[in-house]
């Protein structure tokens, strides 16, 4: 099979389904704060960063951890990548709402990284992740970098969006 189905439909699959449902329900019913074109890029950034990172270190030859039931790439691994995206958008949403400045910005990043580690710890309990040579302490450093990058990317996109008028949309002849 190209993408194997779960061996047993148990804790890890439920964890992914429940989290994804809650996340995407929030995403669809939350009031709009910034343009959808920016939200799409933020979702893609989150998914592609998770894919690059997991495919680089969770697969052979490094094999530092496994995701879900198989050592192979399976159907629920694909869902796992999309599970993170709404929570990453929630991070940006609250950032945009409260606009933490100075040391509060650093505190905001640390707080979200701790929340992500907690989220990953729960995922580990539910057997979504099985660590071999990896630990939650390493994840904390990764989340610190990713959250900082994510918020900086959001600021850049928002600035770029407001600085570009319709006339600067370059190629009208496209498609």
């Amino acid at each position, binding site marked *: 099979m*190209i*993408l*194997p189905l779960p061996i047993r439909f148990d804790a890890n699959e439920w964890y992914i389904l429940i989290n994804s449902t809650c996340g995407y329900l929030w995403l669809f019913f939350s009031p709009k704060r910034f*343009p*959808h*074109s*920016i939200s*799409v*890029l933020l979702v*893609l*950034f989150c*998914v*592609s960063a998770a*894919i*690059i990172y997991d*495919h*680089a270190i969770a*697969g*052979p*030859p*490094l094999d530092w951890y496994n995701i879900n039931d198989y050592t*192979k*790439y399976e159907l629920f691994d*694909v869902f796992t990548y999309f599970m993170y995206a709404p929570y990453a958008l929630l991070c940006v949403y609250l950032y945009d709402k409260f606009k933490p400045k100075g040391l509060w910005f650093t505190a905001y990043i640390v707080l979200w990284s701790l929340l992500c580690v907690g989220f990953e710890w729960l995922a580990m309990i539910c057997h979504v992740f099985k660590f071999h040579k990896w630990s939650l302490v390493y994840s904390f450093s990764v989340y610190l970098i990713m959250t900082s990058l994510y918020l900086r990317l959001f600021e850049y*996109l928002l600035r*770029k*969006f407001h600085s*570009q*008028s*319709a006339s600067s*949309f*370059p*190629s009208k*002849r*496209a*498609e």
Partner: protein
Amino acid sequence: MAFSILFSLTVILGNAFLSIRKNLHPFEILFIWMVVIIIHHNFITITAGNLKLFDVYDNSFNYWTMVFMRTVLIPLLIVFYFDRMVVRRPYQKWVWLPLGILMLTGLEYLAESLGVYRLSGWKMWWSLIEWLAIFLLIHFPWLWYRRLLDKEVK
């Protein structure tokens, strides 16, 4: 050697891309880049990891060359291609499409010749179909995103 050749190729292409006037909006460039990463990583993991049609992992240096290729070089080539094609008429884009496909198939052939991976069951001509499918999978979401962006920028 493989890494230095592919890295040099990326620097040359990167410089060329940075020095031209872009036809795509920066958001479109990011969109295409990330969609390519998502589609191509999934494709490689399924074909190499699950179906064992490629052998990538001779040593860790080859492995990281492969990671570099699929994260930087291939998305850069595809973004470059879309950026050049966006201002052309639709029939011209279809005429130029085989060139894009041949270019990416050629890159795969180069990586295979340099020993980044070995084909074990994969036929090189399948790459033509692979890249055609990937181009189409990027093209339609990109058109959707372009309309969304156009609407919101106005």
